[in-house]
C-alpha cells in the first residue's frame, strides 16, 4: 500500500454464535478504498481462523440496515455479521 492510497477503517461486530466462532465480538479493519462488504469478509477470513467457518454469504448489516456483499463501505461504518435468527 502506498502512502497516498486512500483507506477506510470500519468496525466489525460478530453477533451470537459468530462471536464464538471468531473468538471476539468486535474488531477494527482497514482496507484500501474503494472496498465492499465482500472485501471485508475476505480480510476477516485471513485474520481470524474461525472466520473461515462463516458462511460464504452471511447475513450482514451495515449501520443497522441489511446489505449484500457488493455494498461499498465508508470510513466509520459499523458492519455486523449476523447468524440466522432464532427468536420466538
Amino acid at each position, binding site marked *: 500500500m502506498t502512502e497516498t492510497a486512500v483507506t477506510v477503517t470500519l468496525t466489525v461486530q460478530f*453477533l*451470537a*454464535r459468530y*462471536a*464464538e466462532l471468531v473468538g471476539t465480538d468486535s474488531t477494527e479493519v482497514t482496507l484500501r478504498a474503494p472496498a465492499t462488504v465482500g472485501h471485508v469478509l475476505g480480510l476477516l477470513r485471513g485474520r481470524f481462523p474461525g472466520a473461515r467457518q462463516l458462511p460464504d454469504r452471511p447475513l450482514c448489516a451495515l449501520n*443497522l440496515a441489511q446489505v449484500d456483499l457488493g455494498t461499498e463501505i465508508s470510513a466509520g461504518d459499523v458492519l455486523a455479521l449476523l447468524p440466522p*435468527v432464532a427468536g*420466538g
Partner: protein
Amino acid sequence: MNLRYLTERPIDIELLIERVESETRGGVAVFLGTVRNHHGGRDVERLEYSAYGPMAEAECARISAEAERTWGAAVALEHRIGALGIGEVSVAVAAAAPHRDEAFSACRYVIDEMKRRVPIWKREFYADGSVAWVDPTAPGGIHFSTEPTSLIDDR
C-alpha cells in the same frame, strides 16, 4: 439504549393488552411463546436469548407498523433477552382491532415476521451438560456451542 421491544424482565401480559385495547377495538388476540423443555429429542433445562439490540428494536417497530397499517390494528409486543427457565414466556404479542379476523391476522403476522426478521438468537442448555446455538437453517436445527458458560450479550 432505550428498549421498547426487548426486555430482561418477565413480560407483563396485562400491560401489553392495556396498551392496545380501546372502545373501538372489539377483538384482542394474544400470542405467547414459552420455553419448551425439549428440542430435537434433547431435554432442555434452560435458554439464553441474545439480540443485536438496536437492529432488533428497529425491526420490531417496522413489523408493528406494517401490521397496524394492514389490518387497522393496534399492536404491542415484547421479547425476553437473557436467561429463561422452562415455561417462562419468551415472546408476547397483543393485537387489537375492531373485529376478531383483523386481530388474529395482525397477531399472526407479527409473531411470524418477528421469528423471520428480528436479530435475536437462542442458546439451549441441555440436561446432559451440552449447549447449542439454535439455527433453523442448520442440519438438526442446532450448532453445538464450544462455550459452555453464560454469554449474555448486552449490546
